[in-house]
């Protein structure tokens, strides 16, 4: 066992990353936080709408869209990526609904058919593209991501001001855009999630908001791809909102808790990965899940841990 788990050396695990390797540690932890926070905000609505599986589906089927976009445009620019992601995300949801409506296949099976087919098509196309010449789309990276490479990306400069590595800057943009949309359209998202029938009778078109949310979800997933990959993105979509749901019965408080969870799991997960010499993204998800278990254990006797936070009754 002692050979399997490296000893916890304070100097190596805690001091060194924040002194000598500060630039690497800082950007990895910041990226981890941004990824978990953005996924957590979208994921909160997915969980409320009982659509966690759809997040899983889009995170896989997006591979197909990315490869197709790459083959057509021969570039991996941000706009190309976003357009490809939204198109594939909506295509996935469309296929799921088409199968569900046109046959006796239930939704869960329809989801599995749709995304595995698109994912498989993506894998096939990726192999073909790789054989044809230099393609800067790495299958391993798409599946698992590599957050440790984030600090190596060229820094973005605006008017001589060095902002940070490109993926981090893009992720900040995505998170800010997400928060702006979630704030402006809070009431539409709330009522279409809680009571779609009422929403429609009020003249708020539930279908439009459903597809809008799916488009935003696709953009979030594609922008976290590079860092955490398709599989861990699903964990990031589901774990922070589950943590928040354990601790509060109020939606605004849940969003705050999602951010707290994102910060804790990113920082502690990074420290764990330094200690164990493992993938930082994987360690962040493991820590995130532990935090959920902790919240669950603490609040098991009652529904909410902090009654004061759930507004007086």
């Amino acid at each position, binding site marked *: 066992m002692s050979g399997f788990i490296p000893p916890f050396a304070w100097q190596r695990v805690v001091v060194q990353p924040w002194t000598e390797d500060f630039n690497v540690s800082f950007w990895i932890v910041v990226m981890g936080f941004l990824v978990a926070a953005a996924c957590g905000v979208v994921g909160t609505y997915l969980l409320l709408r009982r659509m966690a599986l759809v997040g899983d589906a889009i995170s896989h089927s997006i591979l197909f869209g990315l490869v197709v976009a790459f083959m057509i445009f021969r570039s991996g620019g941000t706009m190309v990526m976003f357009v490809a992601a939204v198109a594939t995300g909506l295509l996935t949801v469309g296929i799921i609904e088409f199968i569900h409506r046109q046959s006796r296949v239930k939704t869960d099976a329809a989801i599995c058919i749709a995304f595995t087919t698109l994912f498989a098509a993506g894998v096939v196309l990726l192999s073909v593209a790789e054989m044809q010449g230099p393609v800067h789309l790495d299958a391993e990276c798409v599946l698992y991501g590599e957050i440790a490479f984030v600090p190596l990306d060229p820094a973005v400069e605006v008017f001589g001001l060095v902002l940070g590595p490109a993926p981090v800057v893009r992720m900040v943009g995505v998170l800010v855009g997400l928060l702006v949309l979630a704030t402006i359209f809070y009431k539409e998202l709330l009522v279409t999630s809680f009571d779609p029938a009422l929403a429609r009778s009020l003249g708020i078109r539930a279908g439009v908001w459903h597809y809008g949310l799916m488009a935003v979800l696709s953009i979030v997933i594609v922008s976290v791809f590079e860092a955490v990959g398709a599989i861990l993105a699903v964990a990031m979509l589901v774990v922070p909102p589950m943590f928040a749901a354990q601790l509060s*019965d109020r*939606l605004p408080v849940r969003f705050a808790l999602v951010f707290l969870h994102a910060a804790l799991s990113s920082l502690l997960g990074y420290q764990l990965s330094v200690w164990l010499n493992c993938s930082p993204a994987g360690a962040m998800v493991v820590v995130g899940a532990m935090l959920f278990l902790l919240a669950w254990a603490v609040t098991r006797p009652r529904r909410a841990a902090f009654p004061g936070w759930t507004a007086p009754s």
Partner: protein
Amino acid sequence: MMKDFSTTAPPLEVHDLTVAYDRRPVLYGIDLTVPAGSLTGIIGPNGAGKSTLLKAVLGLLPLSAGWVKIFGGPLAQHARRTGYVPQRESVDWDFPVNVMDVVLMGRYGHLPPGRRPGRADREIARACLDQVQMLPLAGRQIGNLSGGQRQRVFLARALAQESDLYFMDEPFAGVDAATEAAIIDLLRGMKDRGKTVVVVHHDLSTAQDYFDRLVLLNMRLVAAGPTAEVFTPELLQKTYGGRLTILSDVAQALGEER
């Protein structure tokens, strides 16, 4: 204070409405007019299509045939004037909102996209909660409410919509006696203020007392009119009795043929 409705279109007009689930018809050729200022009960046996009728009228289900007019036009034109109280079970009561949040949703139809409810909307919501004696529980999480309290929250939300025409799906189902009395008082108050209320109801024993008009439904319209004219043994027999099972047999056969 009664408004003059003689020159305006009726709140609800339905012609030849037919609805099918999965090609199996559940409502055939419904013709119906609901006059303004009436309190109308829709009654019929289980599976008669009572809730389906409401959902079809509100555009929540596709029509196979026929048309619906709300105040003489399509629903989209009069969404603000139309309120809906779905069945209690249709929503997730673990949803992270409190009583006030739910009642404020009734105001959403009056707000443009991107605008949040303001102080005036909160005042209206408070007044509506007060009308159903739920104001002291305004801050309570909705999961911690009893069945009767949940129904009152839904009614307060409907009041907050300030509509002229209301559709309610089984508001009396599974509520305590005090809530039932409170709801019927509320409905009568709405009628007195000139509102039109259409209620799906399953309890025959109270239907006669509660409603001034009745719609007897069993996959097709059996009768519709003032309670005194419609609530007769013959028509009820026709609605609940064995005769109409022939129709549902036809539907069954059509369903199996697919």
